């Protein structure tokens, strides 16, 4: 039972353009959502998070949008840079603080 789904295994974007990574979830009890970035042979690195009581959170080039009625969130990266090329994981958290991850989306930013 996949509670967090990232339906796009990969995404390719031109440098300078917007990258949009999507994530869907099924459990309405999740109260925090996080995005992590992962380079090969490294652990996931925290990017940005959002509480379920908000619909948008912004940090520099990264913005996360949450649509609770659709149980959908997205990560926007503007402008995309070659160094953004990595695997992006969407994760959700409920009471107890354990994270439930999606399978990840590979982002390639072409220069």
């Amino acid at each position, binding site marked *: 039972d996949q509670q967090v789904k990232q339906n796009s295994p990969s995404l390719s974007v031109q440098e300078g353009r917007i990258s949009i990574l999507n994530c869907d979830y099924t459990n309405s009890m999740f109260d925090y959502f996080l995005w992590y970035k992962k380079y090969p042979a490294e*652990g996931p690195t925290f990017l940005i998070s959002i509480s379920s009581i908000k619909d948008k959170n912004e940090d520099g080039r990264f913005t996360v949008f949450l649509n609770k009625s659709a149980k959908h969130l997205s990560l926007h990266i503007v402008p995309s840079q070659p160094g953004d090329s990595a695997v992006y994981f969407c994760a959700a958290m409920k009471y107890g603080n354990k994270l439930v*991850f*999606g399978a990840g989306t590979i982002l390639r930013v072409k220069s």
Partner: protein
Amino acid sequence: GAGVSQSPRYKVAKRGQDVALRCDPISGHVSLFWYQQALGQGPEFLTYFQNEAQLDKSGLPSDRFFAERPEGSVSTLKIQRTQQEDSAVYLCASSPSGRAGETQYFGPGTRLLVL
């Protein structure tokens, strides 16, 4: 400051062997988590400590898996009688206090290969 460290980074074990994986969390972090990441998948929760207390071990796949954090800092994940399906990357994460919504900081992982 220093991040989360894990050792060894790579481990090859023969089927049936016992292995021990170590995690050094960020100094002072109260909460510690273990996750298992299979190839091509996202990390999956295994267990959670707050200080030395193991508050949640619902993700441990079998009684061959055992985790401890006896002094509330370093943690060890032990896998007994390893099987091929145990091959995965084992990730450790820590967070300052364990408050709801708090960011977890991950180590580089231990890649376990069981032959």
